[in-house]
């Protein structure tokens, strides 16, 4: 048995280290370490409630809109208020734009470059992978980045600026969109659709949205030309459908909310596909292996106070649990919980999530969101208000539960005499990259890595990179 410390893992957000015990080339045990702690929960405590809208988004520059809308939702729930209908819709369009940008950035800049590593030089697809996806020099990023830039113009229109906008308020969004701006939004989304159809998918969005079975996915992969079918070819050759299996269950808080519910549903899915409602009270956080002082497991009561010298601790992340068990979050979980037939079938087929399902789910979601945003854009009632106005109570407690691109994001907030008395955040990557809990149960990535064959390459193996990056981790969110 050899122990190696792997890191830094770049092309993930923030700093990640993984300790691996390797036996005959196979990972026997993985310990995932988040190496950065900034103390957002302490920064938030004691401030006036609305200051969360300035501080909380700055947890993460990649999903700042998600953090904003989680904070805004928590404050809105504290007040028992409702946002203006247009406010929900405009926030959803901006949030979808951030998430689409995130999914495609992950695909083009973070994940695919690993297939251009020298380790794969003898594969039939290597030449093409290197030309298209080589980190920094590949043609894929040159094609994608200008599209990303154009997509983020949605933020200029709805949110003023990105990242770190104050447009997302408990009552809605701060800028009323006019007729001309709606046209601009539609134009941006239309251009993005063309990029997806011509470059990413190689077929029409309608065709992607209609796919329901693994057989349809395979036949599409054989006939279409584009970056997604190319990924599917590589995935089939490398067996990515059985690599990096998640332990389940899958959790989603539901995404793109309005006053009546959410576009993607809230709930829990088992690896076999059984759906169940989410019991929010069953969410806890265990700090046994985290460098934090012992505290309540209930996020509505817990504190986050560092204890750098703690014995047996190995991460700045706590271990979130659902009914005492780890859960996987992300696009695959979101679509499975929402009953997406293809994602559900892929998970059922393999009995678990895998590197392939996670990537497939992200790209499918990008297609779904472009389509949905086009609808939301038409739904805006331009003669009506975008922002409702109500005061926050002085004493109350509530949670804001939303989905970031990487999965379930919750802000648990308490106010006392108008000031924040309590703020706890559980971020998506905290679920996925959780350390062990008091019972020694590993987090989802830790279990997805155990049993992985590194082909004698140890920490350098591309497989290790694929499994880790398939979760699209965001370490700055994780310990915050």
């Amino acid at each position, binding site marked *: 048995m050899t122990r190696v410390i792997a890191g830094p893992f770049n*092309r993930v957000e923030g700093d990640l280290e993984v300790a691996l015990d390797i036996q005959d080339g196979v990972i026997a045990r993985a310990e995932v370490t988040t190496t950065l702690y900034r103390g957002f929960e302490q920064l938030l405590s004691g401030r006036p409630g609305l200051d969360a809208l300035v501080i909380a988004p700055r947890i993460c*520059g990649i999903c700042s809109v998600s953090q904003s809308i989680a904070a805004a939702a928590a404050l809105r729930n504290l007040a028992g208020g409702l946002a203006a209908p247009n406010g929900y819709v405009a926030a959803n369009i901006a949030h979808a734009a951030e998430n689409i940008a995130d999914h495609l950035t992950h695909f083009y800049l973070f994940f695919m*470059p690993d297939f251009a590593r020298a380790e794969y030089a003898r594969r039939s697809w290597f030449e093409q992978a290197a030309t298209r996806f080589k980190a920094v020099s590949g043609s894929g990023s040159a094609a994608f980045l200008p599209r990303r830039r154009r997509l983020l113009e949605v933020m*200029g229109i709805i949110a003023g600026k990105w990242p770190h906008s104050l447009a997302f308020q408990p009552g809605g969004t701060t800028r009323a969109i006019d007729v001309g701006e709606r046209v601009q939004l539609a134009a941006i989304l239309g251009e993005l659709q063309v990029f997806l159809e011509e470059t990413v998918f190689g077929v029409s969005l309608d065709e992607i949205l209609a796919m329901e079975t693994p057989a349809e996915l395979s036949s599409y992969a054989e006939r279409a030309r584009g970056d997604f079918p190319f990924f599917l070819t590589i995935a089939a050759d490398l067996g990515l459908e059985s690599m990096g299996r998640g332990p389940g269950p899958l959790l989603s808080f539901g995404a793109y909310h309005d006053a009546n519910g959410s576009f993607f549903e809230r709930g829990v899915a088992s690896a076999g596909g059984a759906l169940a409602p989410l019991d929010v009270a069953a969410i806890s956080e265990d700090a046994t292996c985290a460098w934090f002082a012992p505290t309540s497991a209930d996020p509505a009561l817990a504190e986050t106070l560092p204890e750098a010298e703690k014995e047996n601790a190995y991460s700045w992340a706590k271990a979130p649990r659902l009914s005492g068990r780890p859960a996987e979050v992300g696009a695959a979980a979101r679509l499975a919980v929402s009953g997406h037939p293809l994602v559900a079938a892929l998970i059922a087929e393999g009995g678990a999530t895998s590197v392939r399902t996670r990537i497939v789910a992200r790209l499918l979601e990008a297609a779904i969101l472009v389509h949905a945003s086009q609808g939301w854009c038409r739904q805006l009632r331009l003669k009506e*208000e*975008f922002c409702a106005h109500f005061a926050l109570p002085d004493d109350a407690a509530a949670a804001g539960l939303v989905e970031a691109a990487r999965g379930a994001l919750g802000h648990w907030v308490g106010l006392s005499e108008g000031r924040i008395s309590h703020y706890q955040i559980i971020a998506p990557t905290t679920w996925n990259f959780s350390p062990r809990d008091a019972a020694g149960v590993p987090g989802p990535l830790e279990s997805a890595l155990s049993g992985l064959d590194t082909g004698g390459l140890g920490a350098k193996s591309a497989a290790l990179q694929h499994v880790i990056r398939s979760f699209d981790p965001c370490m700055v969110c994780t310990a915050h």
Partner: protein
Amino acid sequence: MTNLLWLQAGSCGGCTMSVLDHGARGWVRELQNFGINLLWHPSLSEESGEEAIAILDDVAAGRTPLDFLCIEGSILRGPNGTGLYNRLAGTGRTMLSWVRELAPLADHCIAVGTCAAYGGVHAAQPDPAEASGLQYEGSILGGVLGPDFRARSGLPVINVAGCAPHPGWIMETLAALQMGDFDESDLDRLGRPKFFAKTLAHHGCERNEYYEFKASAEKLSDLGCLMEHLGCKATQAVGDCNQRSWNGGGSCTHGGFSCVACTSPAFEQTEDFLKTPKVGGIPVGLPLDMPKAWFVALAALSKSATPDRVRQNATSDRVVRDPRRGGHDE
């Protein structure tokens, strides 16, 4: 080619996310256009683990010349000055020690964003991580590199402030340094490049007409000036936010919310960001270079001359009254 090494310390990654918005064929190619080679960037480079550490070791040992060192994020000194709150993964070392070792080796040392410049949001009270900027702690010269620090070029740390900074501020700073046409006189008194810090964020705001007439927004989403009631600090913060615009045409005040002075040291210490502190009904934070008596006199005068159009639109979320001759009710 000139080598650029980019490291993320206590950051949110937002500065990288911002600069990726630059360049017609992507930021990396934009850098190449200017002869800048990205030696390693945590979000973009292929090299991971040992390969990445080897790049850093080569720089530290002087085997690879370092032209630009860009640091994104606050330097965390906690707990108790150890820096353990932020280790560079896989190296067993703190970012604090890496930065102290690498900064003196670079021709230019660039703090990307307000965190690296002045400490940023992580330094807000109670400052749990002991966050600092590279050469400033808030507005106090010093930081983790010390007041006398000079990069090999002789320049102090260049502070591309902003939370996040505009992509153009980052890229143009790098390109200007590369073109050699940039010296200490191009920095303001807090180390910010003057090309974006020579004006106030207020200049060019589409609400300037409302400002002139002191026709003020009363709630977020109103069109009026945000200074009197809603905490707008753009008359006290540097930046060309409203002149160059963000994300294809936006800005904070265009988006309907106030400037929180994110380019300023200690912006994070503000409380009640979207409320204007006042004494005797007069805002405490007046425009940087305006005597209070003048402000009060001018405000009274201009309020009395406010056209109806401006007054009515100021408290609406859209233009309810178009421009017309005379400006007052007939």
